[in-house]
């Protein structure tokens, strides 16, 4: 952790601060609507389903499944000459047990092993002194 972290940092705002602070404590947390029960991502000032302002932050199980995935051999940027180093092995869209979907990376898999519908669980990746990312691994 002595190496400086040079990758893109999240934009932490008043809206999503509990989410990022939760990851620092190794807790996956998102807002839940008191009125319609929706649990949603990205954190926003009111429930995007029923527009209620009444919500609380709840702890999620960190479990879910792979809704969609792509192994990144390259991207539109690398096709145009951008370097491939720093490109993650894969991009996954995880559907959490509680409903919302997150874009992330799957760790602990070899190329060719990712499958749609694969059960996964969150991995708290402490990438820097003050930054933890929510990656996933096969459950």
């Amino acid at each position: 952790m002595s190496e400086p972290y040079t990758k893109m940092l999240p934009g932490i705002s008043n809206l999503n601060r509990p989410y990022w602070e939760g990851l620092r404590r190794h807790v996956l947390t998102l807002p839940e609507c008191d009125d319609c029960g929706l649990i949603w991502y990205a954190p926003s000032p009111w429930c995007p389903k029923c527009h209620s302002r009444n919500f609380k932050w709840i702890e999620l199980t960190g479990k879910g499944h792979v809704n969609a995935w792509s192994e990144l051999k390259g991207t539109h940027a690398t096709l145009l000459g951008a370097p491939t180093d720093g490109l993650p092995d894969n991009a996954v869209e995880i559907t959490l047990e509680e409903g919302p979907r997150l874009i992330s990376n799957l760790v602990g898999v070899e190329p060719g092993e990712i499958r749609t519908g694969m059960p996964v669980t969150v991995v708290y990746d402490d990438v820097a002194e003050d930054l933890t990312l929510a990656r996933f691994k096969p459950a």
Partner: protein
Amino acid sequence: MSTFDLKDRTAISGVGDTEYGRPLNRSAIDLAAEAFGNACDDAGISTRDVDGLIMSVGSPLGVDCDSLAQMLGLDLRMYSQTWTHGRFTATCIQQAAMYVAAGFADTVACMAALGSSGVQAGLNPRPFNTDPFAAAAARDEAAREGGGGHGQDPVYGIDTTDVGAALVARVYFDRYGATSEQLAAVSIATRRHAAMNSGAMNREPLSLDDYMQSPLLATPLREPDYSLVAEGAACVIVTSTERARDMRKTPVLISGMQPLPVGREEFIWTYPGFGVAQQERRAYGEKLQPVYKMAGVDHSAIDALFTYDVYSIITWMALERWGFCKPGEAADFTQGGRIEIDGELPINSHGGLLSEAHMFGWNAQVEIIRQMRGECGERQLENTEMMQWANAYGDSLIYRR
């Protein structure tokens, strides 16, 4: 509230474009001026006659309306501009049609111009994808709160628009048993069309073997599934149909329009119900959409379809969204030459973003007008009574002669 009747009230009376390539080492304003001048010549009007300007994209990738107007000495009654991305092609033309119909302007130029933005910034010329201003603009959108508009999340190393399309392709392949061999048909068709278009950036024939041997990028997408990032400019002139009839060329009428929808059920690379991003997974029941109602036709009247094929899979999504086939059927629908210029439903006869150039859909508008006037030479379509611009992300224009 009912809409005031816009059907056939306005028309495209001139089109103009430039060379497409990368890098051209020309500034965006230089390219914009050329396409704009060509469109005015095509319409048989003076550049002084234009009193409205709507710019798609804008600086730093493109040109801002105010600087173009000031540098070219235009005297505009209105201008407007959409953000630093594609997508808003129909939005700009629809806005122009409404301003003209409402009397706020008589002659509105709508366009996009993409230059070697280093030239614009007074730096050494370089292609815009490596330009620091352009790169920063692209990253800024990807990094916005709530994520990028195409499923990007740069915090997880995903900062390009293709990954979201790859995720959609994976879901589609797994759900419907579609294959790469089937997806190849989309790129093979556009490449065949581009071979008949001297202005296209990639005119190399593409066989199924070539496709299957091409490099994988964001799997399951391969290199030929990716559009050709380009510099250049394309412009259309919108006037009233009445005025267009007195101009040089046969007018092409704007007969139907449908604006761009957005919300949690929309994701740019597919249609509602598909079940990616925050969409619900549910059956997609395509209804007769407003664009058809306005134009007074259904799909069977459409002689050719033009769509924002930034990635090949998006053409499948557009076909299903607009009801040319049912969900899961586009993979089969696009086989056997059906979408080629001599097929049942020709798509992107110029080569599209995939094989002509990624000119943000503006090149498709130019092609539609030229096809409907019979100006397309070797790739001229036989039936050109009515053509549609319709996108996976939900907006459309129907043009008729």
